[in-house]
């Protein structure tokens, strides 16, 4: 399961740049570390990123508490 989540995150994550944003990777990691509780979240993350990659959804999600 972890391998699947990591693959999703690495495949569909944005490209890395030269400077560091120290918390980003660590925040994603917390999904993986959430274990079983994280499966649903990981699937949703994957789905959002897939939709964005196919151009069916805007890549930047607005701050919205309704989702």
């Amino acid at each position, binding site marked *: 399961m972890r391998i699947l989540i990591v693959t999703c995150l690495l495949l569909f994550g944005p490209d890395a740049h030269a400077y560091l944003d120290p918390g980003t*990777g660590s925040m994603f990691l917390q999904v993986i570390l959430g274990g079983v509780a994280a499966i649903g979240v990981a699937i949703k993350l994957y789905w959002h990123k897939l939709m964005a990659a196919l151009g069916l959804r805007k890549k930047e999600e607005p701050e919205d508490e309704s989702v």
Partner: protein
Amino acid sequence: MTTGTPASVDAGSFRDRDGRVYHFGGRVFRGLSGPALETFRNLQTRPFYQKLAAAGKLVGSREVAAADNPLPDAVKRQWAGFLEHDRIGVISYPYEWTFGMLKAAACLQLELVERAVNNGYTLKDATPYNVQFVDRRAVFIDLASFEPLGEGEPWAGYRQFCEMYLFPLFLQAYKGCNFQPFLRAAINGVDVQTAAALFGLRDRFRKGVLTHVWLQAKLDRHYGGSSENVRSSLKSAGFNRELILANVRKLSKLVQGLGWDAAGSEWGDYSEFHNYSDTDHALKEAFVRDAVVAERPTTVWDIGCNTGQFSRVAATACPQVVSMDIDHVAVERLFLDADAPDNILPLVQNIADPSPSWGWRNRERSELVHRCRPDMVLCLALIHHVVITANIPLAEFIDYLAGLTDRLVIEYVSRRDEKVRTLLRNKDDKYSDYSRASLEQHLSRHFDIERSADVNDGDRTLYLCVKSTVH
């Protein structure tokens, strides 16, 4: 929390914009922003918080009424309200702690996060500088770290927890490498990429390394430059508190399971194999006891304490003993000894390279003497290590001690002593200053020698020295 000039701002409390620590007349205050004050007031009504406070896991704190606030108006105007904290006897830093102390602090940090998250709060950071040791127990001192947990928010302090607690503990437990130099070298601890470089392929099979080190480093490299709003992405994907709790619980188990085999130290077995007969040992203990009872110091430093034999003697007649030694193993044994008195604070400290003032403006973390000035110092079986091993001139060492304290118990170890002969065996003996006469001469430049006693057939001599200004 050192006492400074009236209303001095704590130089290390600048990072969190929601609060600032002030020292005034020997008291410790924390100014809070409006939201932080509201959080504190709400927290006080919550049973989980009350239980933590009642268990002594949080520093004793109370809101100060405006009319009772002694701070200058210029300070009061900056904040919505103020707390007063109980004073901590001696502030210590993680790079002065043993493995067991850092582990105890880590367990407390995780317990607080778990309880907070369970109750709709979180802790905004996870730094061991927010933990202090009072009566040998870890106590959390930064109450402004608590804040309400936003819906879908991850644990903001996770990465910091890894860098400041977990990776240093891994280094000690998995590599047998003292963690203190790492924490003293970098104010933010062991960063993820450094940790990944330090732990090799074999280490990935050790518990927690694959995920917390290797994978975090991988994700950090991949997403490091990302402009994506990850918090928003996680939130919209349904990230929730159960994920934080699952992570924190697993981390707690991981940290609790970490152990360090504290064997093989040069000095750790000293107490079992000291160079004294039982009679001489009793004589030395009596000398120290008499000195402490006669001089009634409030704070004793035992420099080169080993496993704290003489610290324990001092602790029977002095409210606070700070026991320090270069040897991590010896200090760890003192910390882990359940029978050791509560008024001993054990610290890993090399007196030839003591904790410096450093961090932002070189004031964020201060040297030990600025945090706690001793009114008596014990230097037992130490002087040969300072002069011969560390090559510090005897005169300079005595000058240093005289700058530190008014009362000194020091032991001279003669050249006939086996340990001195061992130290000199591979060195050119250029230590003409190392003699009893030289020591007495340098001591008398600063102190009156009140008493002296020979032990070990005169191979060692104990001195009680007191500055004439004290009497």
